[in-house]
């Protein structure tokens, strides 16, 4: 088996797992909130693989539902963020010095404020909840990808085929869409996927801190912050499994992104 095949397998496995979690979560909305007081505080076992909490809720279902919520929020936020990055990146590189200066300044500004702080501000200003989190994550995560794309476009502008297109009299927009965009797709896709883990971690951390989703939602941040209260009583499973699953999800997104990069990057595509 060569490198490329291995990479394809990694990529597929990661994507299948994440898709399964995301879709699985959609179907257990009710189950994740159902309480059964006869099944309180159970250790992980056959009927409850991740145990149950003090309301008798099944932690496995809650974890899946929580991760699913996180993935979907991450998906929404990362997509918005990546498209913002794409548009601003291209605009910055093609629309002249003035626009470039403004956009670069905005990028520096957003990057200059710690993510989590800006995220909290935006989320609170929008009344927390789903919109607050999605908008918050979207508005804070586009900067680094925008920089990458700006740099790439600047380089592209000097390349032969673009210069020829210019000489042939094509408009700026036409060149950007027809000739530059296809070239940017690989970076964009990889960037998009690598945004996911950040989006997910940040979503769960502001929810954990109480500035994100509201507490009847089984978001992973809620699950973790609730479990903190019970760690002292020895109920380790409340935090361990959801925490591990969160880390696993984040790592798998990273694996998927990296594998995708290897697959479509000309430098490593044929290994």
């Amino acid at each position: 088996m060569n490198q490329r095949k291995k990479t394809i397998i990694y990529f597929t496995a990661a994507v299948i797992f994440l898709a399964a979690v995301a879709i699985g979560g959609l179907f257990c909305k009710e189950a994740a909130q159902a309480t059964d007081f006869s099944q309180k505080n159970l250790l992980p076992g056959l009927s409850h693989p991740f145990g149950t909490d003090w309301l008798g809720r099944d932690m496995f279902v809650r974890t899946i539902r929580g991760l699913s919520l996180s993935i979907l929020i991450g998906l929404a936020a990362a997509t918005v963020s990546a498209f913002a990055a794409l548009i601003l990146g291209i605009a910055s590189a093609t629309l002249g010095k003035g626009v470039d200066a403004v956009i670069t300044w905005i990028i520096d500004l957003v990057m200059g404020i710690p993510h989590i702080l800006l995220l909290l501000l935006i989320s609170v200003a929008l009344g927390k909840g789903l919109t607050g989190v999605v908008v918050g994550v979207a508005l804070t995560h586009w900067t680094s990808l925008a920089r990458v794309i700006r740099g790439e476009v600047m380089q592209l502008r000097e390349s032969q085929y673009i210069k020829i297109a210019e000489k042939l009299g094509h408009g700026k927009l036409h060149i950007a869409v027809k000739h530059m965009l296809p070239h940017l797709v690989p970076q964009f896709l990889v960037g998009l996927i690598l945004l996911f883990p950040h989006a997910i971690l940040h979503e769960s951390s502001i929810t954990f801190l109480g500035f994100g989703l509201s507490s009847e939602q089984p978001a992973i941040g809620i699950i973790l912050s609730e479990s903190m209260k019970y760690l002292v009583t020895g109920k380790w499973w409340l935090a361990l499994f959801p925490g591990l699953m969160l880390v696993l999800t984040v790592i798998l997104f990273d694996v998927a992104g990296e594998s995708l990069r290897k697959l479509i990057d000309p430098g490593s595509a044929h290994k």
Partner: protein
Amino acid sequence: MKNKLFRTLTAFCMAGVLFAACGNSIVSRAAEDTENSAADQKDSVVVTMPTTSEPESGFDPAYGWGAGEHVHEPLIQSTLTVTTADLKIANDLATEYSVSEDGLTWTVKIRDDVKFTDGEPLTAEDVAFTYNDVKEKSTVNDFTMLKEAKVIDETTVEFDMETPFSIWPYTMAIVGIVPEHAYDENYGQNPVGSGRYILKQWDKGQQVIFEANPDYYGEAPKIKKVTVLFMEEEAALAAAQAGQVDVAHTAASYSDMSVDGYRLESVASVDNRGFNLPTTAPEEKDGIVYGNEVLQDVAVRRAINIGLDREEMIENVLNGYGTPAYSVCDKMPWYNNEAETAYDLEGAKKLLDDAGWVEGSDGVRERDGVKAAFKLMFNPEDSVRQALAEDVKNQLKELGIQVTTEGAGWDVAYDNAQSQPLMWGWGAHTPMELYNIYHTIKDTGTAQYSPYANETVDKYMDEALRADDLDKSYELWQKAQWDGTTGVTQEGDIPWIWLCNVDHLYFIRDGLSIGEQKIHPHGHGWSIVNNVDQWSWE
């Protein structure tokens, strides 16, 4: 990108370690204090309280110390009257008090031998000053019934009232008297009083240390030094496990823990939990909806009241540490025990059947296209309220009523509760709470927290406030709950459902006796130290 991911992960880990470190440092500091005190003599105690118990604006009655949202004895200051173990009234500073026939003038005579801890005598001037001050400033407790406090002579004060207020002695039991000569805007930070204890030290966000007042006019406090540490329940448990505190407040979810050298003590309370049922048809006013389509039907409200198994709920949610509640004032002298109901699932179903609520294919009852469904909100920071809401949801499902639970912060909860039930906590040492919950307010013609109006109930409460002695007023308060034909109980309008009184739980170090505790009101904080002067070590 990858680097950044790892950086983020590392940052989270570091944050975690940091939090843990912060937690430890508070506890270990407390530990030093205890070890110092425990070594020399056994007349000091260290007590934990929730962080919300720390008085934000200091120990000033005008800003809620004692006379706040959660009432308690102010320790540093003395009060005119006190509430007794059975929640009746006894004298403290007052030697006698009387009220005029029209109920508009209260005359109180006070002791002449009381001195503030700075050596100045406590006179009628101080009393009048205190009451005029709280009337002007207090936003957390209601003093609108008071017109003015006047000095008659050195030891006599007269309270002129706006409206008759027969339960004034209960208000007198929570307002600590401050010295006029030593009162300024910083009083809350450096309070001077005439009470059992002196504020020795206050490290904001951490602890308060009290020392016994050596010149106290009453019985000398047995406990000479009281340290109060503010921390969350899990930290309190950890502190008890480490043997660093003498009394640690705790919750039912920790009650299965056993801590060596400590016993779990449960104190009865009127700290009740219940939810409101808006009794009117939905109607929007100024962007807020008042009333609820389903709950306006009294049959639904009655069915809910008898269709809930309170014992099971207490077992499930409170691990058995609670008592069923049937009113906002169970066990109080003004409680009408007609409010008590028995769990009757079949009866509840019959009520709904008779009212025309028919079970649909999804198991949810329906009438004229309206589903028997409502939202039940709870405060997201309170796991007990969340659990109660979830249990209500499970139990009402059997009745064919669909409940969805939702976390709602206090910023939106009050408005939303006008149309949707909210899980509340109440319970106070004054019948005024009945008035606050069930009496209509003038501007809207409906009760304050949840749409409800009943003229007869209003009338009894107005009469109770006009009554010329307390015993008569108790009777009228009881009639306001149920007079044989109407009221707020099962056979009446049942605009609120009361579920349980939450016992207040404490891990108490072996050998420490916390005396006879009054029934605790709402608020798991200062009530425990109401009688700290009478605690004793074996």
